């Protein structure tokens, strides 16, 4: 009775600790995002580049009236702090991120259009990375110092040393042009399908519409970019899984399990792997961050209409409103994912306390 009461009390304390932790992190997140918005805004406004020069034609640049009109239209003639206040007010009050200088469309609409493509790609990339990474890591640890271990380690180190733009190009040339197994470019075959409405996550949309040809087409387009994108993270996860598993396998409770006469496969899968995988969660968070960067290359090479392409086009065209919008979105995604991972970490491993 006493122990039951004790348990329910500690449980309640755990939950309240968790809640307090989440609230604290959310507050910190707001501060961080405020800082990020100032940072991005300053970078994009205190630099020597001239957005008028980047976006107007040479003939228009020779006409001071056109340049002045252009600067007035985008508020480029006001002091920076005033521009920032106007910008933040528009975001928070009117939910308006401004208009893209490059396309002339509202940035919020554009981000809504591009984000699902990136979300779908990154989810599949993470899935591939985690499944392959954990499998390889376990194989590598079980056969420690055997030839297969060396091969897996070599592959995982190359995963973190491969320039992803080059790897993407190689894979695309090999599988799409030379062998012609996979389609390349875009998220689906535009000659056959015209998906409209829905969530924008075409795998889910195709399933909910019972449109199986679309589903297979979308998956075929998704596979290569997701594989290339996930390769780096896979390398990280393989290395982490291997070293954790080796460490756990040398601990006392595993020796006990073995000395009870338990089968080796059961020792690995039931007893060791659970504990070995906890730090892998953290690495997955790091991997996700890298994924967001690698996205720029992979989306560019596979013509994937996502946030990475959008960020690249915004940056090279010095499209300041778009740069700010897309940076805020990426920072927000990153911070939310990290918060989620930290919480997950504690939920899975009860030894970790929130402070």
């Amino acid at each position: 009775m006493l122990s039951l009461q004790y348990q329910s009390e500690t449980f309640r304390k755990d939950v309240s600790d968790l809640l307090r932790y989440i609230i604290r992190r959310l507050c910190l997140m707001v501060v961080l995002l405020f800082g990020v918005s100032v940072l991005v805004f300053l970078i994009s406004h205190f630099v020597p580049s001239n957005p008028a020069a980047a976006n107007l034609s040479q003939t228009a640049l020779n006409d001071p009236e056109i340049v002045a009109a252009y600067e007035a239209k985008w508020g480029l003639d006001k002091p920076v702090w005033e521009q920032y206040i106007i910008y933040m007010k528009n975001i928070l009050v009117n939910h308006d991120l401004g208009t893209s200088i490059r396309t002339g469309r509202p940035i919020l609409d554009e981000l809504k259009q591009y984000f699902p493509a990136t979300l779908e790609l990154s989810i599949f990339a993470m899935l591939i990375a985690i499944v392959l990474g954990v499998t390889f890591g376990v194989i590598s640890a079980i056969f420690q110092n055997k030839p297969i271990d060396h091969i897996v380690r070599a592959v995982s180190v190359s995963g973190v040393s491969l320039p992803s733009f080059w790897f993407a190009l190689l894979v695309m040339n090999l599988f799409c042009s030379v062998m012609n197994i996979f389609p390349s470019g875009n998220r689906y075959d535009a000659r056959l399908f015209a998906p409209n409405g829905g969530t924008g996550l075409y795998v889910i949309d195709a399933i909910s519409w019972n449109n199986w040809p679309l589903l297979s087409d979308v998956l075929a387009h998704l596979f290569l970019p997701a594989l290339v994108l996930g390769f780096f993270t896979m390398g990280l996860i393989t290395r982490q899984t291997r070293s954790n598993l080796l460490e756990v396998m040398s601990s006392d409770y595993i020796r006990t399990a073995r000395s009870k006469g338990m089968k080796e496969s059961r020792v690995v899968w039931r007893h060791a792997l659970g504990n070995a995988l906890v730090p892998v969660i953290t690495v997955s968070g790091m991997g996700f961050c890298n994924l967001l960067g690698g996205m720029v290359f992979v989306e560019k090479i596979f013509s994937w209409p996502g946030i990475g392409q959008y960020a690249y086009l915004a940056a090279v065209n010095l499209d300041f409103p778009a740069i700010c919008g897309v940076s805020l979105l990426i920072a927000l995604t990153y911070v939310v994912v990290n918060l989620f991972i930290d919480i997950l970490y504690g939920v899975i491993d009860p030894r970790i306390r929130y402070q």
Partner: protein
Amino acid sequence: MKVLKELLMQKNIMFKVGLFIFFAWILIAILAPVLSPFDPINDQDIVRKFEAPSSEHWFGTDELGRDVFSRVLYASRVSITCGLITVLISLVVGVFFGGLAGYIGGVVDDVMMRFSEMIQSFPPLILAMVIAAALGPNISNSVLAMAIIWWPNYARLTRSIVISIKGNDYVTASRVLGATHTRILGKELLPNSVGSMVVMCTLDLGNAILMFSGLSFLGLGIQPPVPEWGAMVSEGVRNSAKWWISTFPGLAIFTVAIGANFIGDGLRDYLDPKMRRTIG
């Protein structure tokens, strides 16, 4: 030197391979004018563009009829130098601010750490891309952009090391003996971080070369006609049927990065087997 000798005595194949690859590339960078059969920029022969690898042009020719082999060799100079400079700037700035934050503590520490968190809440490539594009695409700006992103890593590492040892008795003793703050920081605290810093620098050197070539690939790093690996790969994207244009420069980036990573891994295992867990 003693450390290096000891390292080479150990049974650590990956470290030796890494060292070999990396020094081979440094030699290539130094000897590029001697080793290259053609001039990387001026030997253009538009009639002989897009030639497949042959005994004359080992790696074929590019869209202006330039020898890809010579360009790959010359490009090592830019990439390795820029990688080194990036890491050095980040190291100096990071150790200075991190050491200060850890030693002084309080508000200084808080402000410094929040600022570095802000920078780290971006995927590095995206921030580098934005900064490099905004400053105007050229070599020094892309190196600057990378250094801006990288120094917080060094600052955080230095800070954590300084904080973990500044309460030790020997530090207190030297303060009691009347040592100045500069002396305590420079002589007692920072030397303790050398090992971790060396590991981080080698691993980062590979990353910096990767990112620099990435920026050049996007057209934000070095500008033509100077040969650079990433820019050469992007030339291969425009001419994707001519596989040799992108394959060889890509292999070059890959080998340099893998060399740096092997060295870094080997050093890490040697200096502290436990660090494997924290850095991963």
